[in-house]
């Protein structure tokens, strides 16, 4: 009887640690937000200075946005792995 209670308590603690770990892993999204803001801030200020050159560079701005977002989402994947694996 005591062993079962101890096992349930241990499982609950592991579950609690899982939720805490998943929440901590989501702090990676801070970097994603900062990176996306930097990319588009630079793009907009460069586009205001030189509007005619903004068009061809838009593709690279989108590529940079996707790459910055990807690193943030890697952290989200770690959170999912902690929660469900």
């Amino acid at each position, binding site marked *: 009887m005591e062993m079962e209670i101890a096992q349930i308590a241990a499982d609950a603690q592991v579950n609690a640690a899982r939720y805490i770990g998943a929440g901590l892993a989501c702090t990676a999204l801070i970097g994603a937000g900062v990176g996306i803001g930097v990319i588009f801030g630079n793009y907009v200020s460069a586009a205001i200075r030189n509007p005619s050159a903004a068009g061809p560079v838009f593709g690279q701005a989108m*590529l940079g946005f996707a790459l910055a977002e990807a690193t943030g*989402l890697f952290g989200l994947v770690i959170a999912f792995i902690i929660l469900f694996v």
Partner: protein
Amino acid sequence: MAQSPLAQFEVITKVPLEVAGYDISFTNSAAYMVATLVVIMIFMTMGMRKTALVPGRWQSSVEMCYEFIAKMLGDTAGHDGRKYFPFIFTLFMFILAANLIGMVPWIHAFTFTSHIAVTFAMAFFVFIGVTLIGFITHGVKFLGFFVPHGAPWYLLLILVPIEIISYLSRPISLSVRLFANMVAGHTMLKVFGGFVVSLGALSGVMAVGSILPFAFIVALTGLELLVACLQAYVFAILTCLYLNDALHMH
């Protein structure tokens, strides 16, 4: 009856098949892959039915897809990359159609690119193909790709392992980028859909509060459509960049 928001990613077997102990059942994932192929084939073949010199709308959109990828491949991989155009085009159209079909609302669409198995298979083939192309084009000298120009010998000891590790992380980043974007987007949509239902179930005037998550879902769907197209573009352009690395080292 509340399901988890992650229940939408479940793979359901439609037609069980087994060959030599391997489970090759026809699943909902496979059904959506077939549907994606059918949609792309209809789009391409019906668009080019009457090939006019001054294209109509459908033919013009097919030509725009072609030219977009051809220009991207030409800009990044140069003239030698042109013979890999069918592969890049197939990759781009498949991922684009897959992501967009997953956004169709009423049919409970299944986004098969939200499975790491699918995206890793695609990224793995891209990685193996590009590495093989590099070795076929340059022979053993392709290993010189990991040695940056003009680096002193004592830095090479740490630079080369870092370069190799960052090269080996390419298929992982390529696959996880697409997978995480799709999973995160669709999970968010489902979670806010749950909020709409649970707020709408409140009695009286409080049910009006479900307008807020609904408005957010509308905005989020717009963002997800953008992300669907963008992730296909990013997958394709990174494949072109890796191809350029293999064909012309640096």
